[in-house]
């Protein structure tokens, strides 16, 4: 390695500085609360109660709606997505809801949305979440209309989707209140300075008091409503999310910093290249970002530092959204798995729909922002 070359040295510096920025700005206030939320979802929301909406007999409108949003709850681990997708397709509500779930699941994973909004800006986070929900329904319906003829001789297995007899131990209002408090802590701890309205300013200056009060409420709820085993499970699954994700994220940040540099500075890859390939908001830039995103594999959340680097190096916001919408849902390895379930023809149509929709939504977003 030519370490003495000033170019390499500078790139190494950039990657370390970017890692430091992440550790300082995002880990403590944003990622740690987010891990606790993900841990709470994995433990205290019953996944079986959602599955009943994916059975062959379920109301179609509900199947699509639930499929498009349930990724926030079900896709906290990628190992959940594929078996459930295969189950919905082969034995349940069919190809439409199955592909809707497959597409939206990874894209609206709660950790990904929180970190996107935090690092890449609120608009892009919101566009990612709403884009994923809307397009999953459009893609699911398109797949249904293209292929519904093939669906007739499917095995419908009702018992697979029946509601389990496990009782919810906690009343719904307690669960709701608990999650609202967790999300409140995340929001208020990260409240940014904004002087445009008096109320924003007032919230900003008292954000630590609000966060403190919410923390006290949270402790009270943990003591009153949860038993010792549940608290231990919550901590341990939050910790296992952190263990799984933080090393990957650190790797992503280091690579992004090394190749692309922090916003405002240049590292190994010259800015002019990025600008030429994915700058502006042309059809070509958006298409290129979608296709690259569709084939490339992003480990959980690593798409975010990479995009931050790219945006800083001159990528347009439209292509950035295109990459976010095509990226996490598809990758070459998971295309192969999908193909083993759907077959080549349906997989190609699915990929084509994802790339087209991502390109179009990127152009639309780039036009407005």
């Amino acid at each position, binding site marked *: 390695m030519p370490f003495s070359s000033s170019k390499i040295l500078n790139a190494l510096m950039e990657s370390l500085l970017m890692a430091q920025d992440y550790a300082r700005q995002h880990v403590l206030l944003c990622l740690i609360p987010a891990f606790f939320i993900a841990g709470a979802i994995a433990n205290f929301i019953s996944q*079986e109660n959602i*599955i009943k909406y994916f059975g062959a007999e379920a109301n179609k409108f509900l199947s699509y709606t639930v499929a498009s949003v349930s990724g926030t709850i079900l896709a906290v681990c*990628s*190992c*959940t997505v*594929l*078996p459930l997708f*295969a189950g919905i397709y082969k034995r349940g509500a069919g190809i439409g809801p199955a592909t809707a779930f497959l597409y939206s699941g990874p894209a609206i994973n709660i950790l990904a949305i929180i970190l996107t909004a935090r690092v890449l800006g609120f608009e892009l986070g919101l566009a990612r979440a709403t884009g994923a929900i809307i397009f999953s329904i459009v893609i699911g319906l398109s797949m249904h209309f293209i292929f519904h003829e093939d669906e007739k001789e499917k095995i419908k297995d009702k018992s697979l989707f029946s509601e389990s007899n496990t009782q919810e131990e906690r009343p719904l209002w307690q669960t709701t209140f608990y999650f609202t408090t967790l999300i409140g802590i995340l929001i208020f701890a990260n409240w940014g300075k904004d002087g445009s309205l008096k109320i924003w300013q007032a919230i900003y200056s008292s954000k630590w008091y609000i966060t403190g009060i919410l923390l006290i409420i949270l402790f009270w709820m943990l003591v009153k409503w949860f038993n010792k085993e549940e608290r231990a499970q919550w901590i341990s699954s939050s910790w*296992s999310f952190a263990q799984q994700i933080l090393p990957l994220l650190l790797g992503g940040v280091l690579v992004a910093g090394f190749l692309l540099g922090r916003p405002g500075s240049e590292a190994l890859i010259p800015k002019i290249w990025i600008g030429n390939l994915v700058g502006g908001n042309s059809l070509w830039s958006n298409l290129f970002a979608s296709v690259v995103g569709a084939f490339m594999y992003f480990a959980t959340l690593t798409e975010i530092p990479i995009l931050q680097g790219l945006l800083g190096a001159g990528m347009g916001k439209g292509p950035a959204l295109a990459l976010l919408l095509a990226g996490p849902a598809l990758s070459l390895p998971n295309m192969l798995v999908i193909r083993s379930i759907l077959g080549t023809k349906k997989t190609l149509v699915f990929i084509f729909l994802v790339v087209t929709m991502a390109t179009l939504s990127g152009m639309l977003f780039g036009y407005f922002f």
Partner: protein
Amino acid sequence: MKIEILGIGCSKCKKLHELVEEAVNELGVSTEITKVTDINKIFDYKVLITPALAIDGDAMVVGRVPSKEEIIKWIKEKS
């Protein structure tokens, strides 16, 4: 006794496998631990969310990695 790990090979399934092996070693029971990776076979256990653990054909836990103590408890119940 037959213990089966249901999952398509993600990191949580590997974790579950390790825990089951530890539990079995601790108890000193002779069992056969097998991995079920074929999605269609997994459905036969009425399981849609992995990882899952089946003992003698009954799914004991679905969609999460249980603690070693829980696994030990289930093995004792079943034997």
